[in-house]
């Protein structure tokens, strides 16, 4: 897809492209490294053709922005083990199905007879639980701040209906603590962040203030249309060029300064922060969620006893490094050879928003291999 194809309104994009070029020139020969935190941004940059327009001295790094990709094998193994228990139905978003854990995947469990159902909304899991009180229904709670409130509202609804056969495996992750971990580790140089639009719709702009105050890193909250993506890049380049480290909101039509207050209060009522493990990062303090004590009866890990061996990783898969922006997908030896969307070895190739899948789909692998 290139800019000659349907690209929204050229009259709106052209001035942004020009502004981007002139800022890049002004910054040259400096190499500017922008991290797009969100996996939907990774895909959108390719799909809209905006990525192919970037000036030579501007590099886009993909960050830990896909909840599927950052779910560690330990949690995947738990999900697969739960699905394999007798009398348990597991309900999940479709993205999780093919992700390999240490030893198998949900789809393999299903082939072996497990009841794994793909749902569009976590509320569908409540419907299953109500329809058959003799079965235990477990929802796999995966996702960032965009998704966590939908699961929180579902748990509150389950409490209201006093459902006894419904629980959630809570594997939610929070974006700001991951950004902090990334910057604290000092493993990768980042000049500015393009911050996720829909996560920010919930949390608002305020939680990113530490990027400026503690790390002096500028950032721009951006949406997913071509103009949004360009505004994200232009905003970052402006801030870098003028040495300003503020948080800019370029998605104000959806993102308010304080976010969605009602959604935040549903989240707050349901969950409390806890330490959580991320693929590639290990445990990041206060970066996950767990049910508050009065709702723990809905915690799948409290309800079922799982005795699992230590998780293991596939030899050679660089997903952990990809998620930290340390390597580009095509630097993985398995990329496009042993690992492809048809036969994915790591989650970054499985998830439709994974960096490896995006690079593969849009031909970055061919450019490298020829």
């Amino acid at each position, binding site marked *: 897809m290139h800019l000659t194809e*349907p690209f*929204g309104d050229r009259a709106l994009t052209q001035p942004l492209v020009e502004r981007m070029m002139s800022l890049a020139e002004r910054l040259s020969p400096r190499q500017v490294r922008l991290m797009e935190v*969100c*996996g*939907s941004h990774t895909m959108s940059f390719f*799909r809209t053709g905006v990525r192919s327009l970037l000036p030579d001295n501007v590099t886009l790094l993909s960050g830990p922005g*896909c*909840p*599927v990709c950052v779910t560690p094998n330990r949690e995947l193994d738990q999900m697969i083990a739960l699905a394999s228990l007798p009398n348990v139905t597991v309900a999940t*978003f479709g*993205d999780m199905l093919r992700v390999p854990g240490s030893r198998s995947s949900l789809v393999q469990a299903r082939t072996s007879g497990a009841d794994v159902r793909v749902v*569009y*909304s*976590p*509320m*569908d899991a409540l419907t299953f639980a109500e329809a058959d009180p003799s079965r235990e229904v477990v929802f796999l709670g*995966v*996702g*960032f701040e*965009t*998704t966590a*409130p*939908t699961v929180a*509202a579902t748990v*509150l*609804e389950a409490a209201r209906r006093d459902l006894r056969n419904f629980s959630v495996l809570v594997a939610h992750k929070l974006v700001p603590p991951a950004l902090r971990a990334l910057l604290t580790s000092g493993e990768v140089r980042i000049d500015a962040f393009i911050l*996720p639009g*829909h*996560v920010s*719709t*919930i949390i608002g702009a305020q939680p990113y203030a530490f990027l400026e105050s503690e790390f002096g890193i500028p950032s721009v909250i951006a949406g997913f*249309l*071509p103009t949004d993506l360009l505004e994200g890049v232009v905003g970052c380049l402006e801030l870098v060029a003028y040495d300003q480290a503020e948080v800019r909101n370029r998605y104000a*039509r*959806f993102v308010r300064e304080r976010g*969605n207050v*009602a*959604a935040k209060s*549903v989240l707050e009522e349901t969950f409390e922060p806890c330490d959580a493990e991320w693929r590639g990062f290990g445990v990041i303090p206060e970066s996950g969620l767990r049910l508050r004590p009065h709702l723990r009866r809905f915690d799948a890990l409290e309800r079922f006893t799982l005795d699992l061996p230590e998780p293991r990783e596939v030899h050679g898969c660089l997903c952990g490094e990809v998620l930290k922006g340390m390597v580009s997908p095509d630097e993985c030896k398995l990329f496009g050879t042993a690992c492809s969307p048809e036969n994915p070895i790591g989650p970054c190739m499985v*998830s439709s*928003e994974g960096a490896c899948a995006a690079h593969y789909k849009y031909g970055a692998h061919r450019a490298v291999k020829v």
Partner: protein
Amino acid sequence: MCLAVPGKVLEKDGMDVTVDFGGTRRRARADLTPDIVVGEYALVHAGFVIQKLDAAEAERTLEYLREMGEHAPD
């Protein structure tokens, strides 16, 4: 995973809403935007309205998604 799609609220019954995504209708929940009313535009993610939208902006986004052939909320 947190793809979110704008649509217009056609019906509301308690926390259950019906949203029109340029022709496709789906049910969603309004627990996270309890004050949304019929006729307003909604950003929907995983079966929940996660934000209310300004009509003009919603139309602009919908128009673009239509061009890209991506307006189904999955």
